[in-house]
């Protein structure tokens, strides 16, 4: 993009409008887009102020607090002010890491999230491709059904799915002839049930986004390829896949983040983490520790662990984005 020196503010001496004639006030770096308003020192910060205040107060500060609490002894006694808070160092983390349940929950979280991500991506992409191959009416039907699933609040989706699979009154067991098999009783069947619900409500995002991406590929490119005699498969592999890569990265990362943080579904469908905590994931585990048993420090330590894991995912994402040369 070319630069457009402003005719109003700080007109460049002499050569007005000459490309690249950057006035001294502008940062030396050649700017990509230079709207007339862009040399106004404080204006962008003024625009950013509300957002930054909100984020600092309700995101950054709580993160700092989370870290702090994870190093303290903080239980009901300290919350009510009955006892002074004491610094524990890494004590809470030591407690956590020596607890075999934590490792079990961590493993379950990772595996469960991975299963959710993979199934969401596979189903979402497959259906996006399917959408490109069918006529308007069936496409509208599938799109509307998917939007319905997408729009359904997590809590209602959870209750409906539990009801569908209810051993006594649900239609699923009846159709499958499973009798009074209880899905939420076993560990794996309970996770499978939650996975189905998560898949149901999150594949639409992938499907719609990837579909929009396929539609955005310029027709000329594909036509040229097919005129040159490229096969369908080749067009897919060498043209569409690379062009869809940015979109695929976005949906993958978003899915990882969402599925790693599943809370409502597990909480509602397995009644707070399943029998004897067999269906706990980190999120629910932290919540139970903090709010159910008032071990706020342990809950915070789990929160910090989650934060670190998700931060790592983010860094990988940033690297991928940067490697593609996309400008931020």
């Amino acid at each position, binding site marked *: 993009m070319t630069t*457009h020196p402003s*005719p*109003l503010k700080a007109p460049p001496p002499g050569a007005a409008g000459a490309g690249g004639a950057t006035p001294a006030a*502008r940062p030396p770096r050649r700017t990509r*887009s230079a*709207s*007339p*308003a862009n040399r*106004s*020192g404080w204006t962008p910060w003024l*625009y*950013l102020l509300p*957002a*930054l205040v*909100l*984020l600092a107060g309700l995101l950054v500060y*709580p*993160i700092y*607090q*989370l870290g702090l*609490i994870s190093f303290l002894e903080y239980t009901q006694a300290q919350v009510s002010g009955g006892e002074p808070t004491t610094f524990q160092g890494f004590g809470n983390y030591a407690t956590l890491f020596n607890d075999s349940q934590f490792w079990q929950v961590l493993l379950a979280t990772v595996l469960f999230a991975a299963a959710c991500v993979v199934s969401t991506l596979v189903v979402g992409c497959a*259906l996006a491709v*399917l*959408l*490109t*191959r*069918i006529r*308007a009416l069936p496409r509208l*039907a*599938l799109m509307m059904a998917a*939007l*319905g*699933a997408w729009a359904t*609040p*997590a*809590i*209602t989706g959870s*209750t*409906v799915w539990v*009801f*569908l699979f209810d051993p006594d*009154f649900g239609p699923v067991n009846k159709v499958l002839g499973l009798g009074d098999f209880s899905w939420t009783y076993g560990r794996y069947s309970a996770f499978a049930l939650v996975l189905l619900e998560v898949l*149901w409500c999150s594949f639409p995002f992938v499907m719609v*986004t990837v579909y*929009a*991406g396929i*539609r*955005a590929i310029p*027709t000329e490119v594909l036509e040229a390829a*097919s005129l040159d005699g490229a096969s369908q498969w080749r*067009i897919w592999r060498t043209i569409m896949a690379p062009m869809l890569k940015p979109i695929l990265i976005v949906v993958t990362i978003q899915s990882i*983040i969402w599925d790693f943080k599943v809370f*409502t579904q597990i*909480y509602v469908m397995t009644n707070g983490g399943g029998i004897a905590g067999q269906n706990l994931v980190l999120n629910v585990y*932290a*919540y139970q520790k903090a709010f159910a048993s008032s071990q706020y420090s342990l809950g915070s330590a789990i*929160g910090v662990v989650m934060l670190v894991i998700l*931060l790592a*995912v*983010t860094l990988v994402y940033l690297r991928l984005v940067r490697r593609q040369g996309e400008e931020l």
Partner: protein
Amino acid sequence: MSATTGSAVRTRPGGGGGVRALLRVKRPGRLAAEAAALLIAVAVAFPLYWMVLSAFKPAGEIQSTDARPWTLAPSLDSFRRVFEQQDFGRYFLNSLLVAGTVVILSALVAFLAATAVTRFRFRFRTTLLIMFLVAQMVPVEALAIPLFFLMRDFGQLNTLGSLILPHLAFSLPFAIWMLRGFVKAVPEALEEAAYIDGASRTRFLWQILFPLVFPGLVATSVFSFITTWNDFLFAKSFIISDTSQSTLPMALLVFFKPDENDWGGIMAASTVMTIPVLVFFVLVQRRLVSGLGGAVKD
């Protein structure tokens, strides 16, 4: 039917018509694909159908072990129970108030911020952008603990404010990130023309840029509306004693009972809770799809 390609061209000029023409498989294959799509659509819609159906079923039929996919005697009993027993209307209004406030405020704040990071060059711009990206990844559930203490210190527990404020902050990073593409898409020539014609910066911002970016704001709002409307964790943790400040998800939980769940009530409450979101989605559906395309393509 030969109208297919035509309609595709109509919905998105210069877009997918050709793609589909290229990808179009032979007729039997396409029919199979269409049959599969319809089957999948039915399967995907089924849970919602079952929810609404169960909400209208009379109590006896819900508790029957013979789960029939229809009802011959629809009744409003479950809905009546929902609205009479629980102060459901109140919860509904609370939910609407919280989600509505978050949507409007976050749209305005995000619009300003997105304008700042796309139409200005300044120091730390890239750093800020990366921070917005990172902020999206923060597991907000983990922040329930510190936010709980923060809200307590500010005396906000048991108020709707304790739900509005956190959601406002959480929806911002994503909203800014998404709006970026829309703001960027507005040609700079337009901005120059406005200034040449003597428009002030404020005037340009609200009278020219804002209307142009509005479709993007709609797409973004869907996300903040849904996350706020769906919120279960904060409503559960922050509204501890004053149930008059509760939101819909909490009201729903009342129908879960240790011995016997009131499935009719749960399904009726779920229906009431889902309909507004569905309506919202259908209304903005087209803008949402193109908005996602725009944001991602960017």
